[in-house]
């Protein structure tokens, strides 16, 4: 295997953070704020949680740079795909 001699990240700390952020999402989802405000906050929280899982549980933070590029490479393609479908859709 490749070198994995890094100290273990604080996995339980990440777990607690994910739990707290999930609770925060549930709280925000039912607040009497405008839908736009709630959507923006909820999406930020969801992306924050996803990035934490990717960096610490999937160990992207400790992987070679080329593998990290490989992992994020589909993201701009995904944005392009959604954009193109949006343009094609007959509103």
């Amino acid at each position, binding site marked *: 295997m490749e070198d994995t001699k890094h100290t273990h990240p604080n996995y339980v700390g990440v777990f607690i953070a994910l739990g707290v952020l999930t609770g925060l999402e549930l709280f925000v989802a039912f607040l009497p704020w405008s839908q736009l405000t709630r959507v923006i906050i909820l999406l930020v929280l969801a992306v924050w949680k*996803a990035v934490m899982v990717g960096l610490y549980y999937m160990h992207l933070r400790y992987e070679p740079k080329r593998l990290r590029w490989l992992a994020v490479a589909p993201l701009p393609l995904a944005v392009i795909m959604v954009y193109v479908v949006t343009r094609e859709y007959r509103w």
Partner: protein
Amino acid sequence: MAHAAALDHEDVMQPPRDCEPGAGVYNAKLGMWVFLGSEIMFFTALIGAYIILRVAHPSSFKAPGEVLAVSITAVNTFLLICSSVTMVKAFASVQDGNLAGLRKWLIATVIIGASFVGIQAYEYQQLIAKGFVPSEGLYGSTFYTMTGFHGFHVTVGVICLIFVTLRAFQGRYTAKDHRGVEVVGLYWHFVDLVWIILFTIVYLI
């Protein structure tokens, strides 16, 4: 001509030499990451279609909690987060050569993962009993397509984890070689990551 002659003596079709490190990881892990890249595109297609349809036909969709049971799904979300930490603890255990810890955390991951699938089946049963079925317009079809495909991925993940757990009991993994644990772990964490996004978009927005 001299260059062509030199190429004749050099077999360029042979496997890469030491000067070509590739991605710097072993093949199975690289293969899993490439597969996960294709999975990102797959789920983006589903989520993108859902967002476009929801924006185009807002009256076809309901507010959070109106039809879907957010409380049950919140418990399920927490379960999946728990399963991610047990999976990564299994990986950390085998890295440290703690094989008993590996087996213990893998069993916990299997049980929690299977619980997620069971609760999702219960949620479907409740929704169908209320008349919210896949043929229930745009809302029903997009909901069951997205959560159904995710549930299928979790089910496949649980099967793979059972396989890895059996191999762990056979002593197939060591601190020096635990590729199977890491590769299946990557898949499992990806499934968790996708659910984090799906839960927000489908249940909370």
